[in-house]
């Protein structure tokens, strides 16, 4: 292929740019409930985000990357002209990265996932043809955008009602918090590691059987719960704190839980959203080097996921920290007991989607989860107008990403030919 090196370099640069943008802005949104509930300091939140975004991208980001790479466009249609696809993927990446940058700078609630999917579909229709798009797959992806907030909302609702029944609504909330919170920690560890083991680790060539996966996940869950229990046992009832607000000590216990759910959320975000940057890069690389053996695919995704995870962390450290600080200084009534229910619901949904290879919007899922907790009478005030703005924004984001991608596609094409 002509210009092979140029394509590779451009793909990596654009991919890194996009990953940087996600780290700079989107991570703070994903971590908003964790940071906003003040269970974590900004420093802890940034550290958790850096480590677990990276781990999520690296360990569980393979499936969604594969979807973006080869699930949206029917590659067979362009097998005689792979260059079109390469140019298109580069155009989509640049379009998505720039749109995100513009939107974030204006504070518009756009989703990285919707942007990149819109961009890829847009260039495919304009540049290759209507038939090149895997419409069945797109249908599944778009319906997952509706289902994921609903599912997260339902889980959030159930989680919060369980917290009410087991802890907050009882006569001895502090004692019950100490008793039940380790169980929630177990849930976090068990679920996230189970989905990752069952679905995410394919590209490492680690073949666990289903039974092994379950046992391992069980072990991880129990270990985390024990670690949490030790932390919680160090929290002693401080009567002075309860004078103003009787649940102050209970919330301290939930604060421990929040640390674990924040990790899960960062992991989930990394596993789903890094693919938005990395998927097109993987597509370009595999097309350019398609002369190589099929077996190279594993090694390929290995270092590309590294690139994506790294990009997110750089963006987070350069800019995301600042966004998180503003989140942390916002005055909200979001307490750890709520933050945990919403965050865990969102994280579980996103991890599940990542395992299934569905690119969903992490922040929309999180908003759905927050609403679910709100429906359980958990959140003292929600701005519904902002919520409808967030859900409306993807109506704009899809065509915006598509049009930008088409423009860049023809620009690149004109340059090269």
């Amino acid at each position, binding site marked *: 292929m002509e210009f092979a090196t140029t394509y590779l370099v451009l793909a990596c640069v654009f991919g890194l740019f996009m990953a940087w943008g996600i780290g700079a802005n989107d991570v703070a949104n994903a971590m908003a409930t964790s940071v906003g509930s003040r269970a974590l300091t900004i420093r802890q939140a940034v550290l958790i985000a850096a480590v677990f975004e990276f781990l999520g991208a690296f360990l569980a980001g393979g499936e969604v990357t594969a979807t973006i790479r080869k699930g949206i466009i029917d590659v067979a249609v362009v097998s005689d002209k792979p260059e079109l696809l390469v140019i298109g993927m580069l155009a989509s990446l640049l379009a998505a990265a720039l749109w995100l940058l513009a939107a974030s700078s204006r504070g518009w*609630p756009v989703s990285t996932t919707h942007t990149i999917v819109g961009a890829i579909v847009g260039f495919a229709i304009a540049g290759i043809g209507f038939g090149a798009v895997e419409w069945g797959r797109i249908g599944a992806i778009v319906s997952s955008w509706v289902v994921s907030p609903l599912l997260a909302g339902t889980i959030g609702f159930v989680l919060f009602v369980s917290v009410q029944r087991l802890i907050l609504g009882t006569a001895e909330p502090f004692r019950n918090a100490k008793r039940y919170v380790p169980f929630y920690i177990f849930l976090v560890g068990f679920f996230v590691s189970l989905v990752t083991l069952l679905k995410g680790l394919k590209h490492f060539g680690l073949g666990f059987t289903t039974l092994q996966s379950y046992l391992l996940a069980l072990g991880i869950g129990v270990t985390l719960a024990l670690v949490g229990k030790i932390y919680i046992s160090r929290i002693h009832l401080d009567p002075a704190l309860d004078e103003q607000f009787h649940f102050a000590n209970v919330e301290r216990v939930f604060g421990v839980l929040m640390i674990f759910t924040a990790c899960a959320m960062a992991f989930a975000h990394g596993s789903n959203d890094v693919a938005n940057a990395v998927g097109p890069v993987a597509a370009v690389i595999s097309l350019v080097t398609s002369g190589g053996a099929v077996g190279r695919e594993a090694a390929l995704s290995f270092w590309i996921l590294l690139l994506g995870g790294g990009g997110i962390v750089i963006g987070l450290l350069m800019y995301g920290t600042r966004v998180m600080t503003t989140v942390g200084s916002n005055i909200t009534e979001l307490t750890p007991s709520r933050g945990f229910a919403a965050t865990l619901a969102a994280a579980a949904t996103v991890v599940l989607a990542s395992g299934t290879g569905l690119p969903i919007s992490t922040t929309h899922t999180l908003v759905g989860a*927050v609403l679910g907790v*709100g429906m359980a009478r*958990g959140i*003292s005030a*929600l*701005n*519904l107008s902002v919520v409808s703005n967030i859900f409306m924004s993807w109506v704009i984001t899809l065509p915006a990403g598509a049009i930008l991608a088409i423009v860049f596609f023809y620009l690149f094409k004109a340059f090269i030919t």
Partner: protein
Amino acid sequence: MAARSYVMKIFGRAPVRRIQQHMDKVVLCVAELEPFLKAAVEGDWDRAREIQGSIGTLENEADEIKRDIRLHLPKGVFMPVSRVDLLEMLRLQDMVANKAKDIAGLMLGREMDVPASISNDMIEYARRAIEAARQACTAINELDELFESGFRGAEVELVGSMIKRLDEIEKQNDQQQIKLRANLFEIEDDLNPVKVVFLYRIIDWVGDIADLAQRVGSRLEYLLAR
């Protein structure tokens, strides 16, 4: 780039603490009635004027808080309780302070002296009305805990029992009112008729304080019930 997260914007400013602050202010305002009445009974109108001034100031401060809460509760805000019920409760809270201001204003303006034979009962009667407002405040102070527990379980029962206590206080206050009116009726022929008319009005208004406090409590019950 805009250094803020849009997810955070969905969390509105919760009115809970402000509503509690408002009720605290209302109780401070109403509680001034006791020293005010004592000063009035003693005929110390300088001191009464001073206290009436501070009642006015406290009532104004409560008004400010009320306005601030209303401004921050636009229609698009979704809460675990009905926005209408919450605003109605706030309105009733505010009316308690207004009533205290009216009482002090009228008594000072007319330099109303309370007949010695009923003055002790009168102060006792006002004290019970103030207690009703205090009890309403105690219940309102559980509002943040109610929101925290999601309006479920032990906390709801606790507030329920506080409201029951409030109802009892109001009932006692009613009994006192009946007795006070009867006593005034017995001596009214010996008094200036205009003065008597206004004395009856003051008795009514003091009773209104307990009554309004009780209505604050029943609004709070509405919030629980939904």
